[in-house]
């Protein structure tokens, strides 16, 4: 039998959220660095305004299942980092609050061919005060927009990191995660973090 868990150091869980439009490569991004194949978990919702997993006795509400993909990375210092991909579709945006709660930061993944699809995520994290970095996914091979164009299009604060990455490439994803956490750290140190 295994030794009991109580005599081992307990792990501390932390999470980062990966947001962006439908099909922008969030699960690819998570999978590039996760130590497990990204897993899919589901919540049952009855309608978009009632919240997650509520159940109605009258049975008149339509049930929908919303899926979230996530990965896990074991880190030094007894930490385990979970990466959560947000559900892509607009009608599931109410779930983002639960995903963002307690998150150490967020990545907004951008496809410059459909840059408007990330606007909702940026609005959300700005309003909520969640520190985030913008990662332009270049896996289609071309940088269609320069950083200045991206910043202009997104109208974000100059201190928000904007990086280019190939969401399939582990070191690219690692670089983006480093940028988010550094940005988070600067925000806390300057007293500007979400309360």
């Amino acid at each position, binding site marked *: *039998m*295994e030794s*009991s*868990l*109580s005599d081992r150091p*307990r*792990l*501390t*869980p*932390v*999470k980062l959220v990966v947001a962006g439009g*439908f099909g922008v490569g969030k699960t690819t991004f998570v999978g590039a*660095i996760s130590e497990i194949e990204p*897993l*899919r*978990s*589901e*919540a*049952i919702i009855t309608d978009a305004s009632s919240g*997650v*997993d*509520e*159940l109605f006795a009258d049975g008149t509400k339509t049930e*929908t*299942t*919303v*899926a*979230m993909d*996530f990965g*896990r*990375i074991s*880190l*030094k*210092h007894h*930490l*385990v*980092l*979970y990466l*959560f991909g947000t559900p892509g*579709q607009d*009608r*599931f945006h109410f779930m983002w609050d*639960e*995903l963002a*709660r*307690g*998150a*150490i930061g967020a990545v907004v993944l951008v496809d410059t061919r459909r840059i408007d699809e990330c606007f909702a995520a940026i609005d959300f994290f700005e309003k909520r005060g969640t520190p985030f970095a913008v990662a332009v996914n270049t896996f289609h091979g071309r940088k269609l927009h320069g950083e200045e164009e991206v910043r202009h299009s997104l109208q974000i604060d100059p201190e928000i990191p904007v990086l280019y990455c190939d969401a399939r490439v582990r070191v690219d994803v*690692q670089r983006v*995660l*480093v940028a988010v*956490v*550094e940005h*988070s*750290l600067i925000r*806390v140190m300057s*007293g500007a*973090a*979400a*309360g």
Partner: protein
Amino acid sequence: MTSESDTRVGGRIVRPYAMTGGRTGAGLPVIALEALVAVTPDGMRMRHQFRWEAAEIIAMARRETAVIELAAMLDVPIGVVRVLIADLREKGAVAITDPPPESASGAGEMARIDLLEKVLDGIKSL
């Protein structure tokens, strides 16, 4: 309608909330998706008295495992797994490690900085 990849229709053979006796966990404090569940020594001693999903949670949580991982591996909705975990915690069979709090004011600010520095070091060392 919604696209295939974000939603799924049917596929289960047991109504999800039948596993919890119809309870949805409404009114209980919400356990974070990334909170870690670990079997306690008492849970190991009691493990043979649990069945179905509860027994599987006990088996999987011999290694600290997040709520969302348990939901994914059991293929049950998150709300259902939360109720099952809350039951197991009440019986003393599992312990839950909550994620560190988000707010960073006063003493919490130093703890948050320390945490973020460790996470940063951890990611850089991958």
